[in-house]
């Protein structure tokens, strides 16, 4: 018992030396941080910035978002406000309807009542109040179409909280514009 205790003490003491070795070694190794304003890093793959809207693949100026509002509802900090305009679309082209009605109804599918005018929710602005966002990611997770993702917007600084109330739709459009001009 006594021998074991003394042995343990010496292993414990040796662990102190090991600790010093670790920090001593790190002291002389190259630094891992960069001097920010003069240097920046480009390894931002895993970075979680604020959320951003995902544009449609074939139409980079419009988002995948269907303005269903799930993200705004699930957000624990109520950061997201959707400004939605309801547009009554003219009924889908009459020709198509006619051809559909001419054809004999073979399948037992219930045809959606085509004569009712469709209202479509159009996103006018997607307001994100980043001041209160905790980056939990529930909005991106709950989006039924994958229309939200984390941006890689690292270099974010401002002098007033107003600067962190971002309209994501306008941001996405301006980014697409920049991308277009570059191409």
């Amino acid at each position, binding site marked *: 018992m006594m021998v074991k205790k003394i042995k343990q003490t010496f292993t414990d003491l040796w662990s*102190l030396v090991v*600790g*010093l070795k*670790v*920090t*001593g070694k*790190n*002291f*002389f*190794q*190259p*630094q*891992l*941080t960069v*001097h920010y304003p003069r240097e920046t890093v480009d390894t931002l793959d895993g970075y979680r910035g604020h959320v951003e809207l995902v544009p449609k693949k074939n139409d980079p100026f419009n988002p995948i978002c269907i303005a269903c509002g799930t993200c705004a509802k699930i957000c624990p900090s109520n950061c997201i406000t959707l400004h939605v305009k309801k547009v009554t679309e003219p009924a889908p082209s009459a020709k198509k309807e006619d051809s559909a009605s001419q054809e004999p109804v073979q399948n037992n599918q219930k045809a959606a009542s085509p004569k009712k005018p469709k209202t479509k929710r159009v996103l006018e602005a997607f307001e994100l109040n980043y001041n209160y966002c905790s980056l939990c990611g529930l909005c991106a997770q709950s989006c039924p179409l994958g229309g939200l993702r984390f941006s890689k917007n690292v270099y974010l600084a401002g002098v007033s909280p107003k600067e962190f109330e971002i309209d994501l739709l306008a941001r996405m459009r301006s980014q697409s514009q920049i991308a277009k001009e570059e191409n």
Partner: protein
Amino acid sequence: MINLPMPLIQILIGLVAILAFVGLNGLVLVYLERKIAGHVQRRPGPFEVGPHGILQPLADAVKLVGKQLITPKGADAVLYWAAPIISFAPAIVCFLPIPFGPTLTNININAGLVLILAFTGLNVLALCLAGWSSQNKWSLLGAARDISQSVAYEIPLLLSILPIMMLSGSLNLYEISTSQGAWPWQWYIVYQPLAFIIFFVCILAETNRAPFDLPEAESELTAGFHTEYSGMGFGLFFLAEYSYMIVACAMASILFLGGFNGPLASGWWWFLLKVYALLIVMMWLRWTYPRVRFDQLLNICWKWLIPLSLVNLLFTALVIKL
């Protein structure tokens, strides 16, 4: 012309020189500490103010001097403002008997060692007053911790110095220095390695350095006894802490590492080199080890350091007698 006695003039000049030395050292040590912390954690440390951030401690000092002094509500104002001064003033006195070089001792007194031990003990009183008069629970807890810690560690500290007194037969720091030779194998650390380790652990605890920084324990007690202090109140505590570090490391290098004696040419350069090497080791330890728990701290002292130093003392006495 006022007729001042020569020793008084000597002491006054010495005190001014020491104040300059302490102030300069404070800046250097703050810079060193932060640079070492940075490099251990693989970041650059202070870098922006001046080349390689060399003016950063100066900027910090200017900021501290410029800050408003606030006395908290319900605090005992007299004790509250006396505490940082009581903490800092004895630290200056401790430099007086230290032999920096063969001809560079301010007052060469026979009880130099006792003087230093007595005046460093005053720091406990200052921290106690600071904690008590702040009217703040963190401060009070920090002060309580500091007192029990200092009381505990003073004992093995003295017990580890005693063998050196026996070997050199003197309490005069200059004589203790000169009784050791120039080469490392002539230093007392060779005869008393255990005493040196105990002494070093004890000065870590006495100067409230990590891993024994329980009186300030920033993650538990905000800042411990100096939570409420602003501006130069805090600045003085800070300066006092660094001064005590220098005094402690100077003691260690005089008692165990030969003081100003060194190979080839003895002089103050060897002394400063040893002191700074020890200070760097102290900082290295700080950025390596996590803070100990309070019961662990007292256990190390009462169950290990005191018995070991007693055994060491008895053994030394026996060898000397034989």
